[in-house]
């Protein structure tokens, strides 16, 4: 009998369900435990960490690109070249001047042309109107910007130059670098006469420093029409944005 009683107690113990420590909450019509809820919030926090990193990446890229404009405006070719990726694929391309590959060649190009300031020369290069997209993995990014350059040499005619950048960036060792810089000339024109009376073709290759590659795109600046391609789709419609050349119809 005594053993029977023991067996009964054992059975009761097996059937006993311990009460939960806290009341369950109802989420999505199901009961989840406090622990499960914490687990979900931990996962959400991990995703917020990725989001804030990407937001901060954008600011770092903005700052990087603005450093570029300030160095170029001061004729600081070496400092401007340091903003580029150290990899062999890093490139710079201005107007129709061709492509220079690698940081050493980029610096040579900037010293010979892109950021060269003769005595009495001016090249005010504001960098403006940002459209930046950081890749979801936070390792690369692309940006469109524009510059309106006030250029010229003391005592001579000044020059207006306007056009967009379509640039690419890469994060190397936690630091954002420019991997590709491409500045398009939309218009280059005379200060004294105005761009409607005197415009200049987009600059061609430097005679004393031939590029490593020919221009990636052939185009002509104002008075020709050219739409430098966008790296991104329309942010609302998701459609590609382009205009056929030569443009057809559509004028009312």
């Amino acid at each position, binding site marked *: 009998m005594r053993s029977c009683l023991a067996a*009964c107690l054992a059975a009761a113990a097996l059937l006993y369900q311990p009460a939960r420590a806290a009341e369950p909450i109802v989420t999505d019509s199901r009961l989840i435990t406090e622990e499960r809820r914490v687990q979900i919030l931990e996962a959400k926090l991990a995703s917020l960490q990725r989001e804030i990193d990407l937001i901060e990446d954008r600011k770092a890229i903005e700052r990087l690109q603005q450093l570029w404009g300030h160095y170029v405006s001061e004729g600081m070719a070496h400092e401007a070249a340091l903003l580029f990726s150290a990899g062999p694929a890093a490139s710079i391309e201005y107007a129709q001047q061709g492509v220079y590959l690698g940081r050493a060649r980029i610096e040579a190009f900037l010293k010979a042309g892109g950021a060269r300031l003769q005595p009495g020369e001016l090249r005010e290069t504001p960098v403006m109107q940002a459209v930046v997209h950081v890749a979801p993995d936070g390792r690369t990014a692309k940006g469109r910007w524009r510059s309106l350059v006030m250029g010229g040499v003391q005592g001579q005619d000044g020059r207006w130059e306007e056009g*967009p950048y379509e640039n690419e960036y890469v994060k190397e060792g936690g630091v954002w670098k420019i991997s590709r810089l491409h500045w398009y000339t939309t218009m280059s024109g005379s200060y004294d006469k105005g761009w409607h009376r005197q415009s200049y073709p987009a600059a061609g290759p430097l005679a004393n420093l031939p590029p490593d590659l020919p221009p990636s795109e052939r185009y002509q600046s104002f008075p020709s029409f050219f739409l430098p391609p966008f790296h991104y789709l329309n942010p609302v419609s998701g459609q590609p944005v382009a205009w056929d050349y030569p*443009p057809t119809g*559509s004028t009312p």
Partner: protein
Amino acid sequence: MSARTFCQVAALWLAAVIIQPALAAQAPNAPPPAPDLAPRLARAADRIASIDAQASRVEDYNALRNLQQIYGYYYDEAQWEQVLDLFADDASVEVGLNGVYAGKASIRRYYYGLTAGKQGLVQGQLNNQLQLSPVITLGPDGQRAQARWRVVMQDGVFNQSANWGAGIYENEYVKQNGVWKIARLHLYVRFYSPYESGWTRATAALNERYGKSTAKADRPPTQRYETWPARYTAPMHYEATTSDRYRLAPPDSAHAAPPPQNAPRTAAQLEAQVRALDLKLRRLHAVDELENLESSYGYYADMSMQDATSALFAENATLEILGRGVFIGRDRIYEYMRRLGAPTDGRLFTHMQLQPVIDVSADGNTASIRARLFEMFGVNGSQAQWAEGTYENRFVLDNGVWKYQSLNGYQTFYTFYEQGWGKHSVPLMTYFPGYPPDLPHSVEYEPFPAVFIAPYHFRNPVSGR
């Protein structure tokens, strides 16, 4: 115990042994004793504090960008009381080689001394100073910051003068009671030259005309330098070789996130904090999305691309530009854009969108931008124009996508290239022929040379004025 009772108990025992695994199979989550969540809640609290600190640095960055750009909009209009509110009490101002004005009383005398002791522009005055290209550096303690900016000046007096100018700001900022203020404003003037002759004929004497106040400076200039055509680089507040390594959030542990306040004790408390952090990040992300959107509008308008441009608007959005009246709905906006004409050879239609002051609502669902419109037009061989104006735009988050709810473009000046704003300014543009608006324009005003301040969507970020 009777035999019968014994059998009953035995049956129950047998049932328990057999049924228990079946029960377990039916309810696999038969919970173990509640685990102690306290360590996980503590780790989550640390993580929230760390992400929040990172987000606060980005908030600071955005606030500093807005602050200097707002300074520019107030400066344009000689709204000196608004300008003064942006400074810390012990701030200083130094423009060109005009010496240092230290403390708010001196700064007040400096600004009023630019405009004959009166606040605001008078008829015929233009005072534009475009705030561009920031390199913002937050101090490690989060209470100080520095920034380099590039400015373009575009000013003059109608029928008397017009000037182009350029310069560099190297400024300092301080956070007091959670609000960023200007601690030191230092503009290095590069050139300031008459519109007619342009910057290539600038001289030191011409450059030194800029920013001259009738008030006497407290101290001589901190830097003696020669303006263009001499070569002079305003000192950079960052080191060239390390400047690109800068991160908004300092990596060193000395400035790690502070220990969490109000550490959550329950999952419900944790959830409330995660939701608040999520909103903070969504509002920061919105700033970037909105900047992309506003910039894209400019790039699309450059090319008169009516499909791409009108797609940026909400279904029931409104558009109001110059004195052309109010157009309601995306279809009408499409037609408006179509009337600007297609891009073609020989035509330049550059619509620069600059100096965006971006504010996102507390709930993260609506936003406003004030931006500067700067345009270059050209018809090859016949005419070119400059134009400048102000946009005040509203945005709405529609199913996760930011769209224009309203766009309002105010005309400051349109002028022919040969004459410039010193000699010519087009009256307020009226209705398109054959395409009347749905409503007349909502604000009555006259463009330059009249004085008109486009209504601000924001209050003074320091004083709330």
